[in-house]
């Protein structure tokens, strides 16, 4: 019920924005126009959305796994952290256009290069948030583990990691929210399908309403992924009830 109200609210806000600012249709089409296209071209749109959703999901899973692994490695070894952390930060500064040719060279034009690109965007919030969480464990627990002669590995996996799950959840939620743009950026590497591809192509042809119909689907995918991630991650930390919601 509530999501419906929100959706209607968003649409009204959009309509109002288009109306109040007098933006021309070919720059920001009103939702009514977009809705018509959404219905007319539904088959095409769904097909492309499925493609992008697959990239997003694969990218998110890969990003989460990669991010979590790196964060754990960084927490385990100062040596690794010293060498690889700058690399990780740098990886965020590199625009897709600079590495697209490299990715294509190594991974080809198939889905692999897109998923890699999406994962590159997605993994960073996870590394960063989880690593922060791992270095913020209650020192009392660490002392306890030390007196119990726990090997560093066990401390990391059995104390720091569960204690950092809320931080991981935080990072995963950010990751889920940027997953759509990750997938679309991936499609820049060179694509022949996907919502991002459809959007660029229709923008180039002046079919702005179709582009915005694709954008609406992309946003819906984003919202769905975000809320799914939110739902899952909240269940990860049952011992900590969040206020609000």
């Amino acid at each position: 019920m509530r999501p419906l109200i929100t959706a209607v609210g968003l649409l009204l806000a959009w309509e109002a924005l288009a109306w109040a600012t007098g933006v021309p249709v070919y720059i920001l089409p009103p939702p009514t126009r977009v809705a018509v296209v959404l219905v007319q071209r539904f088959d095409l749109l769904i097909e492309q959305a499925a493609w992008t959703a697959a990239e997003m999901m694969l990218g998110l899973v890969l990003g989460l796994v990669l991010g979590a692994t790196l964060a754990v490695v960084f927490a385990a070894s100062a040596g690794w952290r010293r060498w690889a952390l700058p690399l990780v930060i740098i990886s965020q500064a590199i625009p897709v256009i600079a590495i697209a040719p490299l990715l294509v060279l190594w991974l080809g034009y198939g889905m692999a290069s897109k998923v890699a690109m999406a994962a590159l965007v997605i993994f960073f919030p996870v590394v960063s948030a989880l690593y922060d969480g791992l270095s913020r464990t209650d020192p009392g627990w660490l002392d306890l583990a030390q007196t119990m002669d726990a090997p560093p590995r066990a401390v990391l996996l059995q104390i720091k990691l569960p204690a950092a799950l809320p931080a991981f959840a935080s990072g995963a939620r950010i990751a889920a929210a940027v997953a759509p743009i990750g997938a679309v950026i991936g499609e820049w590497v060179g694509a022949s399908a996907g919502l991002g591809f459809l959007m660029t192509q229709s923008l180039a042809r002046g079919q702005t309403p179709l582009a915005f119909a694709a954008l609406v689907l992309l946003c819906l995918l984003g919202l769905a992924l975000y809320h799914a991630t939110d739902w899952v991650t909240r269940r990860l930390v049952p011992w900590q009830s969040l206020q609000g919601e």
Partner: protein
Amino acid sequence: AQEKVRLLLDWFVNPDHAALVVAKQRGIFIRHGLDVELIAPADPNAPPKLVAAGQADYAVSYQPTLQMLVAENLPLVRVGVLVAQPLNSLVVLEDGPVKTLADFKGRKIGYSIAGFDEALLGAMLESAGLTLKDVTLINVNFALTTALMSKQVDGVIGAFRNFELNDLALNKARGRIWLVEQNGVPTYDELILVAKRETVDVARTKKLLAAIAEATTWLKANPAEAWEIFSKSGKDLDTELNRLAWKDTLPLLADDPLALDRARYETFAAFLVKRGLIKQAPAIDTYLRDVK
């Protein structure tokens, strides 16, 4: 007083814009009473839309783009021309497996995002008895030459004849080229100037085009001096690729930017309809403005 004019280029400054840059640098625009600001976008699709939205007075665009945008009801009109012939072409590596158009059967062809390359390619392949289904199409975005040289694709459509061949040469590769207009595609104006239909100022446009014509004449007569002016006009223009492209581009620049060949637009509109890029050809006079 000078009239302020905002002119959006289609992309980063390159020798295609020679006349505009020279007209600005040599004060030709000023002499015609115009204070022109040249703005380079990163996305070639945005300029016509921004002109339609009133965010700039003129934009450099392409004939096929104009016709597709007008078919989508963008209030644009063509007011002049910078390059009155196609630049687009299909390119392969000379030592690659493709020697004739027919050899493309089962091969991979890269194209950029422009939106109509696919249609051009379809027509070209049909002229050799193939269809789009016989090849795999890959959108390679910016990286036409890179995709070609790294052999990720066997050919690329959307390559500009004055640029990509030189780019290949600079990277010690040789290309084989098929010109679109000789292989089943009607000829068209590659670079045109567009303005907003309702607000186009014919008097000002005349001044602008006169200045461009004057600059074109001058630079064709003084290519070396013009190169000096062009290469120093902005950051990082003095490059080997630009130098090579300069030579190939100058002869292609339209001597008469006011020229208008209506038939060319009728024919090409029919071609776009046939290729399914637009549903219906818009009435010619809605988007062609003869300022002569």
